[in-house]
């Protein structure tokens, strides 16, 4: 029993921080925001190349899949540190699609896609959700019919985030309507520019845009099927698993706290002496520490190679709900200025970070498996409650 980070872990954290301070320019952050998290801009391309060179993108992958086989705790440290500083460290293409391709793709598919992913040339949008298949993903209806040399896809997806910035779509389709729900699903890669693909932007409350994508008789060649026919469900579950170690990091919550206090110190020194305000901050600090406890428990458990879906769900629920509560309180403490957006410039405390995070907070509670589903997972998998 030892609650200290090992020296090599702290050294790695420091190395990451040094790297961040070298690269974290206002211009880079601007480009990152303008591209809504997608890679491909000139500064981001350079930055991602540097990240690749550091070996940090795949350091925890198994060697046989092109990684360095490092303990996943390194990934956790990377994610926490990057999140604290609000720096990009790879979107789902790197963190979910690439490892899934490396595991389930054929040799030919690996060679076709992975180098482009590493270089930043390829970005994948994920096409799982449909208007009537959200939490209940297995009821998806987009179907692929076998034709000579490939498939014809017909259907509609929502929440195909980054579709407009992507080169490919990672698509879940129903290849056998007669099998039970989970059993008739397959995974395919579609090029975004394929004939019959339509992309419609959907602005969201967070300010980011997501996309609805329509597939009208889109032809997908046989070689774009990933994994076994009708074996898509397992791959989807596998892909969702990849980010469990850095799920719901404490970094950005901690940063939120630090920026709030920094703002108060600079602009409201007198208010900061108010005992009630200080108690609110103390409660906030306590809640962040509580979340951190769950995030670390989850990471350490994964690093020990244990399957602990209950801990991952706890971190997910805790972090997503705290994000709402904490920004909500922060705005109250800031008063009317707390509602000013980034566009209000200097008057917006901390660049409007509390306001924008509050606005974006719903998605983490229902996305990636609703918190209701997560709580039932905790009951079943962590507590062993009969279902």
């Amino acid at each position, binding site marked *: 029993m030892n609650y200290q980070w090992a020296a090599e872990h702290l050294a790695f954290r420091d190395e990451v921080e040094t790297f961040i301070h070298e690269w974290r320019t206002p211009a880079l952050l601007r480009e990152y925001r303008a591209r809504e998290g997608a890679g491909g801009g000139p500064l981001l391309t350079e930055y991602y190349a540097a990240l690749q060179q550091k070996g940090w993108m795949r350091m925890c992958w198994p060697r046989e899949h092109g990684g360095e086989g490092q303990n996943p705790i390194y990934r956790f440290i990377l994610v926490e540190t990057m999140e604290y500083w609000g720096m990009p460290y790879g979107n789902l293409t790197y963190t979910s699609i690439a490892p899934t391709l490396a595991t389930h793709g054929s040799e030919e598919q690996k060679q076709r896609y992975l180098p482009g992913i590493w270089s930043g040339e390829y970005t994948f949008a994920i096409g799982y959700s449909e208007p009537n298949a*959200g939490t209940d993903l297995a009821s998806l209806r987009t179907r692929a019919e076998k034709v000579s040399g490939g498939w014809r896809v017909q259907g509609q997806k929502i929440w195909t985030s980054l579709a407009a910035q992507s080169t490919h779509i990672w698509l879940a389709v129903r290849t056998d309507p007669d099998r039970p729900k989970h059993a008739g699903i397959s995974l395919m890669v579609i090029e975004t520019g394929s004939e019959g693909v339509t992309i419609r932007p959907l602005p969201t409350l967070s300010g980011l845009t997501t996309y609805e994508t329509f597939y009208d008789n889109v032809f997908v060649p046989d070689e774009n099927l990933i994994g076994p026919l009708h074996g898509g469900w397992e791959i989807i579950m596998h892909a969702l698993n990849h980010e469990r170690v850095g799920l719901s990091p404490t970094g950005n919550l901690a940063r939120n706290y630090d920026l709030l206090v920094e703002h108060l110190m600079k602009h409201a020194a007198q208010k900061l002496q108010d005992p009630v305000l200080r108690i609110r901050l103390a409660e906030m600090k306590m809640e962040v520490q509580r979340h951190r406890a769950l995030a670390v428990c989850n990471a350490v458990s994964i690093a020990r190679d244990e399957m602990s879906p209950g801990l991952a769900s706890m971190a997910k629920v805790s972090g997503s709900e705290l994000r709402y509560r904490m920004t909500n309180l922060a705005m109250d403490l800031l008063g009317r200025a707390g509602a000013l957006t980034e566009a209000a410039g200097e008057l917006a405390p901390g660049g409007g970070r509390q306001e924008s995070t509050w606005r974006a907070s719903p998605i983490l509670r*229902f996305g990636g498996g609703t918190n209701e589903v997560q709580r039932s997972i905790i009951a079943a998998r962590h507590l062993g409650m009969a279902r």
Partner: protein
Amino acid sequence: MELELGETRQLLRAAVRKFLEAECSFERVRECEREGRADLKLWRALCAQGYLATPFPSELGGGDGGIKDAGLLVEEVARRAALLPIVEVLASALTLHHHGAGDDATTLLQQTLSGEALPVPALLEAQDDFDRIELRAPAADGLRGEKFFVDYATAASHHLVTARDSDGELALYVVATDDAALKCEALPNLGRTPQSRVRYDGARARRISGPDGVAFLVQVARALTCAQLLACMDASLSRTVAYTNVRKQFGRPLSTFQAVQHHAADMAMHIESSRFLTYETLDALDRGVASEEQVALTKASLSRALPDVVMTGHQLHGGQGYIEENDLYFFTIRGKDRCLAWGSAEECLGIVARGVEQKARWL
């Protein structure tokens, strides 16, 4: 105790609702949001219908109603998420009516009710504290200084500005916005309502009331803001109930899941208690017996409730409610912005805290 609207009020509410549903589509609201402006055309139509005058005596062309009727109007406007300065103008007009002194006040009130004038309060300064006003009363060369967080400042024809006279006493001054010595800088905010930082550089200002009027203005605006919060919560819930009744997951409507029912029940409890507290407070204001503590307690309660309510609405809507094509977001962003307006929960609790030793009559 009679919690139902009487027949007259039911008719009024139905008429206003019908009018707004016909005149104010959510698409129109989105357009105003994008352009960062108030819906002045709709405002003029609302005034032309005579609705704005409802809370005022018939001598002023009104409906002999009271502050509760002002609350009903505010609720209906908030239910459509319309970008109208309804709280700002009603609070200003009620202040002019109850505390305005001199011909200037009388004229401005008449013009306001007929829709010719549009006065909005300009109280707060950089510190965001109703008790810490530093602006000095206008000298010979006019009013000089800044006001912050002025809602609908650019849409207004007049600002009701608080300033301290030489005795340090607060008073209310009218400034016409066509005065060249007045500059507005937009403050983009969560609620997407037009808001400004205003600089007065020697603007002409006429005194229309003393500290009583200022205090009354804050109380009335604070209570009317509760009606906005109430409508936002109610709109979020009714949309959520309708959605969960039809949206199916795992082969059955969302509303049949225990967790969904319980979330919705919590929303409903917040809303029912909020409705009671809001109208009880407006009623007390009508009768001139509302204490600062009562108004603050109500505002604190609703400001605490709203974020949980609207965010639960989002949780039950999932992705569908997060997309701005869905109308749900209006009530989320307007609502939270209003939680901070006219005293946040924290600020209002501070007022309640002053009187914790006072024994309340619970019946």
